[in-house]
């Protein structure tokens, strides 16, 4: 055998075996440690992608506590807390997003996949273009019904021009979808159907797109609930538009009822008393047969009261079946105009009669 052949052969063999041994050694070394690391999940494409750490969401009480696994309350201030490190400098960062969304009953629904409306997702977003540093003024509320509370927010430099701690304050508007308390947090996935999820995202000029879904420390995917909220607003009492002669009837003025509910609901009314003559409570106009609500809302016709008490309801929204009026997908509130009609029986004593009607916003229970 000539040296021309054997020398490269030997060298190649030796190199091959050495390389093989190195790969095997590496494999054995790595296999010896079976612990897993969980952290940001995303499409990091270069070594210098942004890093998102220290992620949490908190209330703003004296000693802020995490809201993971709890229910937050609408119209109340909470904060996103996180740190973004830009290894190549903040000028590389193009976007930072702090997001919340309702999973709609499916834990795999991501932010983009939630398309129901502005009461089901929202984000605080900042866009950068060669910015030397971030600031609280960079952020604004997008996509949904939250208010960015800039005055309670802060951005603090950890390493100037590179690493920053963010505290971004927000309030849910009143109709952000209610969700029960998540009871089964997970370190591997969003794990409570019909809960709210949260994430932070950062992108840079190298198309790195980095997410953080998990609370730092516990590594639990960030889920929380929203307490139920209802509100009713009346613009005034109902008064018969004309004096009613015995045997006659009259419509009242129309009163706009503004209703707010962050889950499916009914709006119904019942009279707690008959119409009582002012100054002489012994004289009344019975509600039964004399008072009705003109058709409005979900009603199929005029709604007649068959008596007083909660057993004699007229459903303005929803029905006795029961059916529930769907909560607004995007609006902050809804309205319904209600007009009563009052009939005065023959023989009724002249005077002013007043009755009390009880309006109730009843949400569907339990929350899914």
């Amino acid at each position, binding site marked *: *055998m*000539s040296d021309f*052949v054997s020398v*490269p*052969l030997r060298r*190649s063999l030796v190199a*091959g*075996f050495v*390389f*093989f041994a190195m*790969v*095997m050694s590496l*494999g*054995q070394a*790595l*296999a*010896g440690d*079976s612990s897993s690391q969980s952290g940001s999940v995303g499409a990091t494409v270069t070594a210098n992608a942004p890093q998102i750490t220290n992620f949490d969401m908190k209330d703003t*009480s004296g000693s802020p506590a995490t809201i993971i696994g709890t*229910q937050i*309350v*609408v119209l*109340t201030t909470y904060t996103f807390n996180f740190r973004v490190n830009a290894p190549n400098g903040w000028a590389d960062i193009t976007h930072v997003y702090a997001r919340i969304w309702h999973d709609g009953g499916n834990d795999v629904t991501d932010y983009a996949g939630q398309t129901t409306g502005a009461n089901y997702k929202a984000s605080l977003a900042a866009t950068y273009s060669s910015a030397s540093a971030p600031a609280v003024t960079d952020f604004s509320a997008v996509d949904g019904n939250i208010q960015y509370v800039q005055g309670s927010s802060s951005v603090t430099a950890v390493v100037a021009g590179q690493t920053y701690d963010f505290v971004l304050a927000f309030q849910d508007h009143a109709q952000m979808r209610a969700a029960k308390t998540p009871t089964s947090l997970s370190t591997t996935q969003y794990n409570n159907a019909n809960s709210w999820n949260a994430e932070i995202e950062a992108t840079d000029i190298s198309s790195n797109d980095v997410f953080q879904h998990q609370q730092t420390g516990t590594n639990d995917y960030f889920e929380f*609930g929203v*307490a*139920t*909220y*209802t*509100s*009713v*607003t*009346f*613009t*005034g*009492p*109902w*008064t*018969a538009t*004309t004096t009613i002669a015995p045997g006659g009837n*009259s419509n*009242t003025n129309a*009163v706009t009822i503004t209703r*707010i509910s962050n889950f499916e609901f009914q709006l119904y009314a019942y009279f*707690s008393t008959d*119409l009582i003559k*002012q100054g002489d409570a012994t004289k009344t106009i019975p509600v039964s047969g004399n008072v009705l609500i003109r058709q409005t809302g979900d009603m199929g016709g005029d709604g007649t009261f068959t008596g007083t008490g909660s057993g004699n309801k007229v459903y303005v929204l929803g029905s006795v079946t029961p059916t529930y009026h769907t909560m607004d997908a995007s609006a902050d509130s809804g309205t319904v105009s209600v007009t009563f009609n009052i009939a*005065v029986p023959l023989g009724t004593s002249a005077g*002013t*009669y*007043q*009755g*009390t*009607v*009880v*309006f*109730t*916003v*009843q949400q569907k*229970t*339990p929350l899914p």
Partner: protein
Amino acid sequence: MARIPDRNGVLGPVVFLLLIAIVTMVLGPPEVRAAAPDLSLHMVGEAPQFDGTTPILVAGIWHEIDVNLTAAPAQNVTLQALLPGGTPIGPANTYAWDFNPVTGSWTDSLYNAFIRADLSYGSGSLVVFVVGVDADATVGIWTLTASVGGTTAASETIEVQGAQVSYGLSTPDFTFRVDPFTSAQASSQTGNVYVRTINQGNVPLGMLVSFDTLQSAFSVVNPSNVAHLGSDARYFLALSLGPLPPQVITVTARTNVTPLYVVPSAGASRIVAVVQQPFAITVEVGHSGYAIQTIGNVVFQTLATVKATYASLTTWQVYLTGAQNVTLDVAATGVRLKGVFSGTQALAFPAPLTLAPTAELPLTVQIEVPNAGAGSVTFTIHLLGTGDTEVFTTQVAVIGGPDTSGAATATVLWIAGAALAASVFGLISLNTVRHRKKLRNAAMEKSVKKGYHARRQERARNRNRRHYKGGKGNARSKGAGQGQRGTTPAKGARP
């Protein structure tokens, strides 16, 4: 001329103090000055409301209107509220109320309806009218004027607004847990869980919380019966419960909200709205972390999920309470049931059990986890009295398992390494083939240039060399093979 001793020393400070008094009266704040007559107003029990700097009067709600005079009035005090240009004169635009200091009487001279004589009062220079305008009064900028004996003493521009009753209620998941057969005190404050009420309207609201069951057990911590204007209040719930058997109690609480200080209608029939908003409270009487299952009048408590360590024994207790006896059967899936014990006595299935409604029967369940992966234990309870049967399940989450993760990683890396090694050997082979090809080409080039005799001589030399190497070399080496191509092997050339 008589000399007045120390004259300058006395008058100097006097003049100075006088000047200070004059300046203070002229330039000082109104509350420090000697009071000029003025007007102010607010709803009963509420702070004054303003639209910018303009005082607000809400139609249909009683207000206190304070007339501050410079001295106690000796003549009639008249308070007028007018919508400038309002016609025809009526409750929509014009009001006049009188106070007679001599008789102490309070009157609504136009309508005899919109004054609360029982709440109005005079105190020296202060005259307080408790009055209101009709709910249907025209909203807008009105003029409020106070006069004494027909002479205007004070005037104020006010804004009359329509009443707006607005009430918001936020309620979280209220769940109280107490141990069975034990008196308990609990507060939602522990978990910072609260009812939140918001008055977003311009009418004060009376608020009352009621409970459909356990009325005496529940209370609202630091309750307020009034939701004041703009109030945003948080109320915790407290529970004080006597001993109860295991059960889940669902309570419906209701907030009843009523507008306060409403002026009665002076005219036609009227319907006043009240807001009622219900919310749910759950009281779990059971052991912490346990699922409380009910079948008839029997309650069974077990953990919904048990965390068991791989290859070890795990025990937990289940509890039975009830008014009839049962049989219990227990089976396991994915885990090994070692036994169910009543005290130290192992049960044989189906096990007859004697229950009482006033005490719990604790049973100890013992399992072993031979395999990784989830398992479950099912409890089948058959009620001997009613014949009902129900199956309850405890899920078993196994912690740990055979250390297969390292082996799996190693396997993957072995495969990767083998693939890399194969690639290396492939490159070696390719390299070798290339060298052989080069050698063959070189040899062919040589043979082309040689003539017949030269080739014969070459072959002869090769034969001689083989004979020479045959005793000490390997004739099967590649070099020998190449050299032999196309020739008859010489005798003795092969081993």
